[in-house]
């Protein structure tokens, strides 16, 4: 394949300054993710998974190291370009859903389109279509607090998808959901991956990780395992 990998990071480091001095949360991570892959990221709490995802999502900047997104160096992008990347190339799904509480589900889903300068009518149709796709078309006018956690996460996924990104980053998307709803959400991710969208997903649960094609394990800010799904997770 001549097209560059979706994600290519090398020697990625991130330190947080704390009252007790600099704390290295990532100590030199190398990773390459090709288009269409489905990667599960696992590891004990505090091992740097979220830190890594935030860097991939262009929400934070690394202390050192290189990050190429679609072959482009993120470190050379200015703030506006980073905003553009967050809005159009990447869909980020949070553990806590992060919907805006006072807006209807449809308006929540349509919000990335506002910042992409899509006109109102088009925003409406696309947001509707995305809600249909995650099975919540009937709730378009409801407020987020009217629906269950699993449904909220599906709305958040619809929002992440609305601008047709080719990379979905999800940090513990099922962390707040029971196993039944977790399965529903994971089925959705699998379907998206079949459509060709690259997915990187952090999870604590082996059942969830089992949906992925590839498993990456973190410990103490380093990758200690990277390979095809090996079934190791099932014993965690």
């Amino acid at each position, binding site marked *: 394949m001549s097209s560059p990998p979706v994600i290519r990071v090398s020697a990625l480091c991130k330190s947080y300054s704390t009252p007790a001095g600099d704390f290295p949360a990532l100590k030199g991570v190398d990773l390459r993710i090709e288009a269409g892959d489905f990667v599960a990221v696992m590891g004990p709490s505090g091992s740097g998974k979220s830190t890594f995802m935030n860097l991939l*999502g262009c*929400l934070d900047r690394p202390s050192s190291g290189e990050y190429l997104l679609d072959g482009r160096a993120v470190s050379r992008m200015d703030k506006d370009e980073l*905003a*553009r990347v967050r809005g159009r190339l990447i869909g980020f799904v949070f553990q806590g859903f992060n919907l805006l509480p*006072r*807006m209807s589900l449809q308006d929540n889903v349509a*919000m*990335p389109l506002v910042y992409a*300068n899509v006109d109102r009518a088009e925003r409406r149709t696309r947001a509707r279509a995305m809600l249909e796709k995650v099975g919540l078309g009937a709730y378009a006018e409801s407020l987020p607090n009217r629906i269950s956690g699993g449904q909220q996460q599906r709305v958040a996924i619809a929002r992440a998808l609305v*601008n047709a990104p080719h990379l979905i980053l999800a940090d513990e998307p099922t962390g707040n959901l029971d196993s039944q709803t977790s399965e529903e959400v994971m089925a959705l991710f699998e379907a998206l991956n079949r459509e060709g969208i690259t997915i990187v997903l952090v999870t604590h649960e082996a059942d969830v990780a089992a949906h992925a094609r590839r498993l990456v394990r973190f410990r103490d800010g380093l990758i200690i395992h990277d390979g095809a799904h090996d079934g190791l997770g099932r014993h965690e």
Partner: protein
Amino acid sequence: MIATLLGQAWHAMGANKLRTFLTMLGMVIGVAAVVLMTAIGQGAQLAVAESINSMGANLFIVLSGSTTSGGVRAGGGNAPTLTLADAAAIRDLPGVAEVAPVHPGSGQIVYGSSNWSTSVFGVTPGYLDVRRWSLQSGTSFGDSDLRSATRVALIGRTVAQNLFGAEDPVGKTLRIRNNPFVVVGVLAPKGQSLDGRDQDDTVLVPLSTAQRKLFGVSFQGSVRMINVQTESAEAMPLVEREMIALLRQRHRLRENQDNDFFVRNLTAVADSAAETTRVMSLLLGAIASVSLLVGGIGIMNIMLVSVTERTREIGIRMAIGARERDILLQFLLEAVIISVVGCMIGLALGIGGALLVNALASTAVVISGASVLLAFGVAATVGIFFGFYPAQKAARLDPIEALRYQ
């Protein structure tokens, strides 16, 4: 895009209606105060300008004054030191346009069963020109009336209303201090003087009649005061100097003696009155502007609170593609909407208040388009100025820090 942003701003403001209302109230009060205060200030200026205009231009008043007798000085106008001959001599000075000697007095006026106490001025026909006073009906008295001291009178509107009601006074006979006088004319209304007296509450009679038949004088030809009108404003300083020199010479005052007369420059008094009201209305406007400023600070305060409260929302918006300028615009727009809507309500209240003052009080209140425009411009500026810092604070947030904010 702007429509969407407006909708969002409206939404955000609607989420906390009481707070939005209270913030707006600061603006409302500020703008209403500015509009009302400038309206009152401009009304006062207009009133002063009108009374100055009614007074006559380029005027001196010369009052006969204190003769020092045994160390006791009598007040101005009491001692009969000025004479008609002095008036005639002043008229011949270069730069003098008109001279009008006056004998002021007062008396009880009776017509039929009505009576009225008012000021009675003995004047020459030239007095009306000097004071720029015209007649509403009838005719003035002339030089022949002056020569033969006829009992004729011109009455002001207030006197006419109080004695004659709806009747036409011209040709009627009334009694001043028990002397019968024929009303030959009614003076056009002049309104209030600078010191707040009703200028229409007066009766004018020929000077000679006043002196000989009404009040009497210490010696023939003496007058209490002389109105002197110069040809131009520029001539006033020269005329003042020449006039003082002339009177001192005519009164045979030695070098070391004080003037036995007073010269008052009425135009200077008027100018300073105009200046006083101008400063007063500026001051009113300035005080009102302070409340506008306080309103602006209120907006800034609330916007800062709002930015802090909505830090997480800002983080979410940034995570899904909002640029700095999108966030900036969002918060700026909220501040501007608050200040502009507040301004419009304030304008309505201010104008309403001014109209109310107009209706209730006799003082004039002037609402000028300029002051309304100014208030509006200031409100928008206040919104942008005080909204900018909080909005910028929001826009400069780091996405990940904002998302972590609980």
